[in-house]
């Protein structure tokens, strides 16, 4: 959706049902999730989706100053998404961009429905999402890792939130676009879902699709998220196994 000129090696994004990195259309990149990877944070998680690599850390719940940032009736979830300067092809300038601010907001909106915020009024939970290496799908992977970090911190949760994207490449609906597919494809739709009720907590879309293509994409991301929920649970179980 970036619209740059397509180099020769990406002239065809799908050949005989195979994508440029050898995947099938409904296949995700390899996913690794680990819980409890940091020392100082109250909860943390690490995710790799292909060469996208993200660290999530949670501090809280804690009472913060200034108090006006707190809510009388429920806990406040503060989410901050950041691309480290060396995570992208062109060095990103440190500090929040308009893009990262928007992602921080939609990630917050995506994760809030999974937390019993009313159970802990007047406190703040801070979630930091650090993109160490970026190769498409960073907001989805960050949400997936963020949910594991929240669970790792012992925050009372209704379920896990995971996210992945479906998109359109050379006319085909495909799961989990990688970098060149994102750059030269026709559409991208990241979707987050809550494991306890299958509801959508984040949906964004840019590109061009018909209504039927959107419907097909929703089916695909559901499968993707079901897979991610199992990987998230595995990571959380894995951590407790180590402890035992």
């Amino acid at each position, binding site marked *: 959706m970036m*619209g740059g000129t397509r180099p020769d090696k990406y002239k065809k994004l799908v050949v005989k049902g195979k994508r440029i990195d050898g995947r099938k259309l409904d296949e995700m990149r390899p996913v690794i999730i680990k819980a409890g990877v940091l020392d100082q944070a109250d909860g943390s998680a690490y995710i790799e989706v292909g060469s996208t690599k993200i660290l999530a850390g949670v501090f809280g719940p804690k009472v913060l100053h200034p108090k006006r940032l707190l809510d009388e009736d429920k806990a406040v979830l503060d989410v901050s998404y950041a691309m480290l300067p060396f995570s992208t092809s062109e060095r990103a300038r440190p500090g929040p961009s308009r893009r990262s601010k*928007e992602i921080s907001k*939609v990630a917050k909106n995506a994760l809030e429905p999974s937390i019993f915020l009313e159970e802990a009024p007047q406190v703040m939970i801070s979630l930091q999402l650090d993109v160490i290496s970026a190769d498409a799908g960073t907001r989805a992977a960050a949400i997936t890792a963020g949910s594991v970090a929240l669970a790792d911190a012992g925050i009372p949760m209704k379920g896990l939130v995971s996210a992945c994207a479906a998109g359109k490449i050379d006319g085909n609906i495909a799961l989990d676009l990688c970098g060149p597919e994102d750059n030269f494809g026709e*559409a991208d*739709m990241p979707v987050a879902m809550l494991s306890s009720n299958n509801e959508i907590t984040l*949906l*964004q879309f*840019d590109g061009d699709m018909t209504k039927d293509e959107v419907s097909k994409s929703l089916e695909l991301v559901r499968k993707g998220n079901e897979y991610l929920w199992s990987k998230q649970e595995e990571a959380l179980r894995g951590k407790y196994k180590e402890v035992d």
Partner: protein
Amino acid sequence: MSMLVQNMQYIKKRIAQGERLDGRGFLEFRDITVENGIISKAEASARVHIGKTDVVVGVKIDTGTPFPDSPDDGIIMCGAEFSSIASPDFENGPPGIDSIELSRVIDRGIRESHLISTEKLCITPGEKVWMVFIDIHILNDAGNLLDAAGLAALIALKNAKMPKYDSKTECVIHDESDGNLPLSDVSPVPVTLYKINGEFLLDPSWEEKAVSDCQITVTTTKDGNITAMQKSESGTMSDKEVMKAIDLSVKEGAKLRKKLKL
């Protein structure tokens, strides 16, 4: 957000009974009025009222350096600001997250629909291209800002004139015009559905917006395709609800296009 809890519960109760406080149907817009060309120095401008919601969009066109990865394409920049008079909630300062999200959703609708023919905005490849600045300014927030801003942006762009470029002096002459801004005929229109008590409402008042669980903006083009979507706020939606929102947006977008001749 200084609404009393009773007010909020009352609005919700009435909606549960199938009624809106101002008597409109759930999928009924308030009156929409459009003023064109109110800003003498802008290449185009439009002020849109939806009910008491008041949004002005100015378009400025100037020259700049293209991005390295698209050396032959003009550049689109879209920003939004809330005037501090728009609502008791807003304060001046760097653009808040709400205005960033608003402008980015509008931006994606315009960019991804290829409304602006950026390939026709090249002056010297790799060196100088036209830049189109779309600045959204919220003057009064009485609900449904996003649809108002999207309409105002589309209307302004449709009326935008190119300033003249003097290739000898390499200067832009802003007060002489050189034809229209090159556009394709896609007319992207964002329509936002607000979920309250499990029901979808169009064009909420400020109070209805305050009690909604979440919202989804779907930008569709003339041919009924989807070009941008954004679910916003912390409520959730099912797959079915998303598909229903798309249906409604396609239909309402077509109505708006017809009504406003877009």
